[in-house]
C-alpha cells in the first residue's frame, strides 16, 4: 500500500510541475499584460509604463521569470499580487472561505438530493418519478448556470423579495441567519447541476448493484427489503461514487466561478476571473497551482480510498 501511495504521489508532483510550466507559458504568452489597464489612463505615459515594467521584472526573459517564480514558490513565497501588493497566499486565503462555504453547501445538497433521486429512480425504473427525474436532470444539465442565476434573482429577489439579490452578507450584519439567507440562492443554483450529475451517476450505479446475484440471494434468503437496500445495495452502489466525488472538484469550481459572478459572492472563482482580466500573473498562477493541488488531492484520496476498499486496485 505504501508503495502504491508513493507512486501516486510521485505522479502528482510531476503533474504539478507540468501544469505550472504550461500554465505559466500560456498565461505569459497571451497578448497583453498587467499594465494594459493603465494604458487608457490620462496619467501614465509610455515611459511610466516601461519604468513600472522594469520595476516588476516583467522585462526579463520568460524562462528566467519562470525559474524565478518556481524557485520562490518552492520556498513558500508565491509572490505578491500586482494589483494590491498583497502576498498571493493571503489573497487566495481571503477568498477561499467564501468559496468553500458555497461549494460545501452545494455539495451537501447535491449529494443528499442527488443520491436520493438516483436510488429512487433505480428502484422505480421507468416509473413517472424516474421519467421526471431523467427529464429534470437533462434540463438542469442544459441550463446555463449564469441564466439560471439571473432568473433566480429576478423571481426570488426582484419579484417576490424573499431572498437578497446577492452578496455574502448584509453590510454591518453578518449574523448566522443573515449569512444563511444570503447563501440559499447561490448554493441552490450551484447545486442544480451537481444534483443532476449525482442523480444520474447514482441511478446507474444502483441499477448495476441491484441486478447482482448477491442481492437476489439476499432476497431469496428472506432478508427484509430495507436491509437489502441499505446494507448491501446502497453501500456497494456508493463505492463508485467515491471516484465521482474526487473528480467533481474542477466542475464544482467552474460552477462556483459563474455563481459567484452572478451573486457577487466574494470567492476564488471571481478572484480568478478578475485576475485573468488584469493579467495579475502571480495570483492567476497561485490559483492555478492551488486548484491543481486540490484536484490531485481529491483524485489521490479517491484512489487511496478505493484501494483500501478494493485491494484488487493496488495490483493494477
Amino acid at each position, binding site marked *: 500500500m505504501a508503495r502504491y501511495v508513493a507512486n501516486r504521489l510521485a505522479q502528482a508532483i510531476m503533474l504539478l510541475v507540468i501544469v505550472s510550466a504550461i500554465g505559466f507559458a500560456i498565461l505569459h504568452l497571451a*497578448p497583453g499584460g498587467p499594465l494594459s489597464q493603465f494604458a487608457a489612463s490620462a496619467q*501614465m505615459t509610455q515611459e511610466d509604463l516601461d519604468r513600472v515594467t522594469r*520595476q516588476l521584472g516583467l522585462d526579463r526573459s520568460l524562462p528566467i521569470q519562470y525559474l524565478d517564480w518556481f524557485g520562490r514558490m518552492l520556498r513558500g513565497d508565491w509572490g505578491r499580487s500586482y494589483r494590491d501588493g498583497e502576498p498571493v497566499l493571503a489573497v487566495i486565503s481571503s477568498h477561499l472561505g467564501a468559496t468553500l462555504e458555497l461549494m460545501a453547501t452545494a455539495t451537501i445538497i447535491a449529494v443528499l438530493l442527488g443520491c436520493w433521486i438516483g436510488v429512487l429512480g433505480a428502484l422505480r425504473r421507468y416509473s413517472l418519478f424516474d421519467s421526471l427525474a431523467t427529464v429534470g436532470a437533462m434540463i438542469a444539465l442544459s441550463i446555463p448556470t449564469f441564466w439560471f442565476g439571473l432568473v433566480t434573482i429576478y423571481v426570488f*429577489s*426582484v419579484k417576490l423579495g424573499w431572498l437578497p439579490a*446577492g*452578496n455574502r452578507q448584509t453590510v454591518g450584519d453578518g449574523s448566522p441567519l443573515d449569512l444563511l439567507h444570503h447563501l440559499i440562492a447561490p448554493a441552490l443554483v450551484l447545486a442544480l447541476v451537481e444534483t443532476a450529475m449525482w442523480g444520474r451517476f447514482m441511478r446507474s450505479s444502483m441499477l448495476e448493484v441491484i441486478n447482482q446475484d448477491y442481492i437476489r440471494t439476499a432476497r431469496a434468503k428472506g432478508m427484509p427489503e430495507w436491509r437489502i437496500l441499505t446494507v448491501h445495495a446502497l453501500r456497494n452502489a456508493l463505492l463508485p461514487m467515491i471516484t465521482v466525488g474526487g473528480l467533481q472538484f474542477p466542475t464544482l469550481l467552474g460552477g462556483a466561478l459563474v455563481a459567484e459572478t452572478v451573486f457577487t459572492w466574494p470567492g476564488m472563482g471571481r478572484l480568478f476571473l478578475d485576475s485573468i*482580466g488584469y493579467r495579475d500573473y502571480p495570483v492567476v498562477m497561485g490559483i492555478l497551482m492551488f486548484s491543481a493541488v486540490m484536484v490531485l488531492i481529491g483524485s489521490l484520496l479517491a484512489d487511496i480510498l478505493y484501494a483500501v476498499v478494493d485491494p484488487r486496485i493496488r495490483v493494477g
Partner: protein
Amino acid sequence: MADDTGKFGVGALHLGNPNRRQIFQLGAGAAAGWTLSGNAFAQTERPTNPPDKPRGQVIAALSQEPTVFHPLMPGIEVDQGIWWQVFSPLWFIDPDGQFVPDLAREVPTLENGGLSADGLTWKIKLRSDVKWHDGTPFTADDVKFSLELINNPDFRARSRVGHSLVKDIKVVAPDEIHWRMEAPYSPYMSILGSLTFIVPKHILEKVTDPNASPFHNAPVGTGPFRWGERVPGDHIQLNAHAGYHGKGPYVERVVFKYIPDLTVLYTQFRTGQVDYTGLQGILPNFVQEAKTLKGRKIFVSSTSSVEHIAPNLEFGALADRTVREALYLAINKQAIIDALNYGLPTQTESFVPQQAWSFQQGLPQHKYDPAKANTLLDAAGWVRGAGGVREKGGVKLEFTNSTTSGNAVREQTQQLLIQDWRAIGAAMRVNNMPAAVIWGDFWQQSKFNSVIVGVNFMLGSDPDVTPRFGSGAIPAKGGRGYNTYQYRNPEADRLLAEGAKQFDLAQRKTTYGNLQKLIRDDLAILPLFQGFIAEGVKEGLQGFRPNINMSINCWNIREWYWA
C-alpha cells in the same frame, strides 16, 4: 474657502456666460427629467440642511474592485473613489472648473505671489489645522516627502509628468513650502489639483520597501473618512473622520460594494441593496426603466471622455487626410447616438469636453453626407476597383477596426460603420480583442489600423495634450507619451509648447482653441460623441455632484447626507 480661487479658477467662463448650446442642454435636460452636468443637477435638488454630526451610511456600488490604496502608485479610475475619501490634495477642482484650496490655504497665483512671473517659483501656504487620521499634525514636510517619493527611482510611482520638473524643494515653515520648476509648466496646477494626493511622511519614511508596506492596505490620510476594513472581493468600509478639516463628512460610514456584473449591479440598486451606482453606472438600455423606479433618481452626466475612432495615421489609406474626411462624412453619427446609445450622449468635434473653459466654440460641425464623401474620393483619385473597394496608387481603401471585445455598443457601432463606409467604397473588417490585449502593445505601439476608444484627453481640467498629440510622444517611435495615432504637425507642437508655459488664462484659451481647430481640421481623430455616465442615487441622499473634472463622481461623499 471656495471664493479663494486663483488665476486658474475658470468656472465663470462657462457658468457666468453660458453659450447657446449650454443653455439648450440645460433646458433639454430639465425637460427630459435628467441633467447633463453637475451644475444643472444642483438645480434639481431641493436642499435641506446637513445633520450636525455624521448620521447613517452610504452603500456605493462599483463594477470594478478598488485595490490600490497608495494614491501615488499606478491605479485605475475606481481606485480614486477611495483616494478621494481617505486623502487630500493641495487643492481640488470643483464641478465649475475652479481650483478650491484643500490642504493649501490658498491656490498660488501670479497675483497673490504664489507663482513667480516666469512661472518657475512656486510658494505654497498650507493649513496648520490639519491632522492625519492617527492624530499627527500635517506639515509642509509631508508635501516635500510626497513630491520626493514620486521622483524616488525605487518607488513604483504612477506618473512623473510635471513632478520631474520640481527641484530645490524648501520647507520654509511648518505651513509653507517653496520649490523651483526646471521649466515653466502650467498644467502642473491641474496635476497637483486632481491627481496628486499627499501621503504621511511620519509613516512612510519608516518603511523599508516603498512599494509594499502595511500602509498599502490600511492607508492613513487627512481625508474625510478613515480606513475601516476591506473584505477582498466584496467591500471596503470607511468611517467618518471626526477631525476632518473641511466640510463634512455627514455620514458615519461609506461602504464601497464591488459588483462586477452591470446587470446585477443595476438589480441590486433596483432592490434597494445599494444607495448609489458608481462606476460604471447604469447600462444605457436600463436608463429609461430606471427613471420610472420609485424612490430612485437617475442622473445622466457628461464625462471628459471623448468616444472616437482612432486612425493610425501612418497606416495605408488612413494616412490620407481626404480619406479621413470622406470616412468622417460617411458616418451616420446620429444613428449611433440615437439607436445604439439611446440618445444619451452629445455630438462633439473636439477632444476637449464642452463644459471646459478651454472648449473651442464654432468648430466645423459634422454632417452625414455620403454623396459629398464619394465626390471627395473621386476627385482625389480614389477609384473603385474589384468588389467596389476604392484604391489609389496600389493602396486599397481597406482597413481593420478594433475595440474591446464584449463591449456590445461598440460592436454594434462597428456594424453600422461597415455599412456606412461600404457605401463610399471603403472596406472595414472587425478585429476585436479583450481589454488586456487591445490596450497593451497593440494600442501602445500603434499596431492597429483603427480603433474605437473613449479617451479622457484632459489632465484634470487642463487641456494640455502634449502626451497625446505631440510629435515627441509617439511610443512606436520611442517617444515619451501615448500619441498612438502617430500624429505629427509642427504647428501643433508649437501650440502645445506655447500653451504649457502660458499662465494667463485668456492666452491659454486662444492657444488651445487654435489647437482644437488644427486637430479638427487634420482629423487626427474622428470624434463620435462626448462620453456620459448614468448614475442612480436613492431619493433622500443629498449632495451628489457630478464633476467632469474628476474621473469619478463620488469624489465628494464628504458632502453627502440623508435628508
